[in-house]
């Protein structure tokens, strides 16, 4: 019998799940890329990225490119693990 584990509330949110799904197959991605693909506002995205970073799911690095601030995000091993269990639990719900 399949046991239904609760879905990670941190990932079970449209924007945070979209960010994690984008980052799962990449080494790193720029803030502008995440903003464009998730069609979110900069403010909302920043808040959600902050939540994911505090949970240890992503790493955010701030630097400069051509004298402009550059924010890049990458998924951490803990983030990969959380994402994989989320997908696994999701499959149980669907099947």
């Amino acid at each position, binding site marked *: 019998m399949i046991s239904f584990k609760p*879905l990670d509330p941190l990932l*079970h*949110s*449209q*924007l945070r*799940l*979209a960010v994690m*799904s*984008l*980052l*799962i*197959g*990449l*080494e*790193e*991605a*720029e803030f*502008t*890329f995440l903003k464009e*693909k*998730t*069609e*979110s506002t900069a403010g*909302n995205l920043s808040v959600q990225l902050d939540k994911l970073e505090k949970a240890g799911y992503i790493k955010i690095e701030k630097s400069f*490119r051509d004298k402009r601030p550059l924010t890049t995000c990458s998924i951490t091993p803990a983030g990969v693990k959380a994402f994989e269990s989320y*997908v696994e639990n*999701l499959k149980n*719900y*669907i099947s």
Partner: protein
Amino acid sequence: MEKELSSKESLALITEMISQAKKEAAGDGSFHLLLWGWVIAVCDLGHYGLAKAGFDAPYLVWLLVIPATLISVYFSRKFARQARVKSHLDSVLGELWLVIYLVIITLVVFMSVLDFNHNPVILLVSAIGVFITGSLIKAKALKLGAGMLAAGALVGFMLPVDEQYLVSGIAMILGYLVPGYYLKKSYRDQF
């Protein structure tokens, strides 16, 4: 964008985002194939034509490789700087082609040891690179291109050195340029 997701919506969102990330990471990918396809095809066919025309130093046409290398390095750096995402695939492909470039340079340096039969060997090495690239980015056109390069190598081994330049030039057109333009077109058609 915050709203309660159903399981199916979650799965659809994950699939869509993973596909978006893949598209961005794969990029066009045709620039280097087209650059090197054109340069080496022009050098091979130019060498063949100049030799047939009785020119004393047909090998001078290979000087084109020097600016091509500079252009290739310049644009590789530019693309890497402009890329909004970095993927493991980019790093693997970059390292694969750096190794292939170094092997080809080694073959060219020691061409006299090979009795100047270096062209078919270079085609074989390139075929390996094109095939692995095709496999990594899931592009059948590149695998077929690799087949053309390997076929060119086999034909080349059976011909005199001078004729190998002609075969090599044709193999570069079929193995690099045709799949290169196909990749470029299919990337454009995605958007």
